């Protein structure tokens, strides 16, 4: 109970400190909210690209197009040859109609563009499931088979996406570090301002024999509170932004609905709020170091 007897006093002191440093606190809070918000978006971008790549990789499919006018015997022979290749898991024959339906399903509402074609523009093909580590040898083996017209795999797309993902990850990492440093500087600066504005009070408490933890606690709470509030406000802004953007983005990227956005946004939001609390506390302790013995 003794440890809690001053809780209300600390809270009231925090209110007083915030009131005295009003405008400066408000501006610092706004800056921190924006900084956290940009970080949230960057982290989301990185996570999304990572998810997309993982999704595409897990499919690891190759489409094999064969020469036209092959009879059913030749097609069966080709299928059998492909199945024998090491690293091939599954070979499925996709008819022209199935290819059309698959594309219509991917395009969703945009599938109406397919109506502009007089006849089915898609060709029949073999859809081959492979293991990722055998990708190169499988491709070479299929290429050497007779009756194979062309092979289409998603390697180039994957490589490009991976490069983009790595780039976003680096930006997210650099930005996270920058946010950490900036939050640290801003919060410790707020604390220093608070300490300077209350120098007489601090000095009086020291002369009355108050221990450091009693003197520092309101300032520590102030710094942590400002940082956490920034984190919470930025997460709220981020949720609103994601909600507003989602319908627009899902029209552009048909695979968007497959990604569990709730899990991503909630995890990233929680991480940012938790980080803001830790950062605020550490920065406040740093800023409080100027309260020396008097």
């Amino acid at each position, binding site marked *: 109970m*003794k440890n809690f007897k*001053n809780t209300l*006093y600390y809270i009231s002191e925090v209110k007083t400190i915030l009131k005295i440093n009003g405008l400066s606190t408000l501006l610092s809070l706004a800056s921190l909210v924006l900084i956290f918000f940009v970080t949230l978006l960057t982290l989301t971008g990185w996570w999304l690209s990572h998810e997309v790549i993982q999704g595409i990789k897990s499919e690891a499919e190759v489409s094999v197009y064969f020469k036209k006018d092959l009879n059913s015997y030749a097609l069966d022979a080709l299928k059998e040859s492909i199945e024998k290749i090491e690293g091939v898991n599954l070979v499925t024959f996709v008819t022209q109609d199935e290819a059309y339906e698959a594309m219509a399903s991917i395009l969703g509402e945009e599938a109406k563009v397919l109506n502009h074609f007089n006849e089915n523009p898609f060709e029949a093909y073999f859809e081959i499931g492979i293991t990722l580590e055998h990708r190169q040898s499988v491709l070479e083996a299929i290429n050497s088979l007779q009756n194979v017209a062309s092979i289409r795999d998603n390697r180039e797309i994957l490589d490009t996406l991976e490069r983009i993902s790595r780039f976003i990850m680096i930006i997210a990492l650099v930005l996270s570090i920058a946010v950490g440093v900036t939050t640290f500087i801003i919060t410790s600066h707020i604390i220093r301002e608070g300490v300077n504005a209350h120098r007489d009070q601090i*000095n*009086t*408490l020291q002369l009355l024999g*108050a*221990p450091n933890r009693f003197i520092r606690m309101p300032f520590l709470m102030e710094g942590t509170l400002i940082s956490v509030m920034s984190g919470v406000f930025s997460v709220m802004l981020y949720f609103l932004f994601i909600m507003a953007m989602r319908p627009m983005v899902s029209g552009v990227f048909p695979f968007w609905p497959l990604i569990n956005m709730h899990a991503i946004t909630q995890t990233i939001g929680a991480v940012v709020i938790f980080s803001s609390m830790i950062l605020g506390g550490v920065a406040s302790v740093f800023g409080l170091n100027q309260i020396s013995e008097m």
Partner: protein
Amino acid sequence: MIRAEKCRLIYNEGTCALETFDLEINRGENVLIVGPSGSGKTSLLKLVMGMAYPTEGKFAVLGQNISKDQSKAIRKLRTQIGPIFQDFRLLSGRSVLDNVVLGMRFLSFSQSEMKVSATEAIERVGLGHKIHHDIDRLSWGECQRVAIARAISRKPKLIVADEPTGNLDEENAINVLKLLTSLSDSETTVLITTHATHLVKHVNATKVLTMNNGIERCVAMHEEL
């Protein structure tokens, strides 16, 4: 209670605030420190409060040596002292009660003990009717009484008042000195500095220290009279 042996205080810039002196103040004494401005009264109180350290010799308060390497222990020592500062050092924007209670928050008082002790102290200095008033709305003399209430509510072993008569007329100054000297008992020692030497005869002190760049004379009150 307070003991000084061949003590001397020279500030960093070279000013000699207190020439070598010996001093002994016992528990329950009521001590007046008199002398003109710049005679070393406040410097002596700074030593008592651990705000300055002796350059030479030994200075101890309540058995605690006052020296640079004892800062933590000195902070603890201050919890046993009830200081009344010349400028009061009250917190603006807070009530009388809040100011008095603040001096006790970090001591071993429970929430209810703090309130009872603060209320008693505020009533003792005659401000019971203004207990919830904002400190900024009080007169100079009332603020001084709040500072006294803050000091005594802590139930200190030593009360230290720096120039409590500073801005008061003679009648009020005598009243404040009488109030302060009435605070001493078998457990509590009172130390008061004042430049108003003519007021000494009105006060029931046990000892008077006359200062002039150090302690010039230290006599028991009855000898002085």
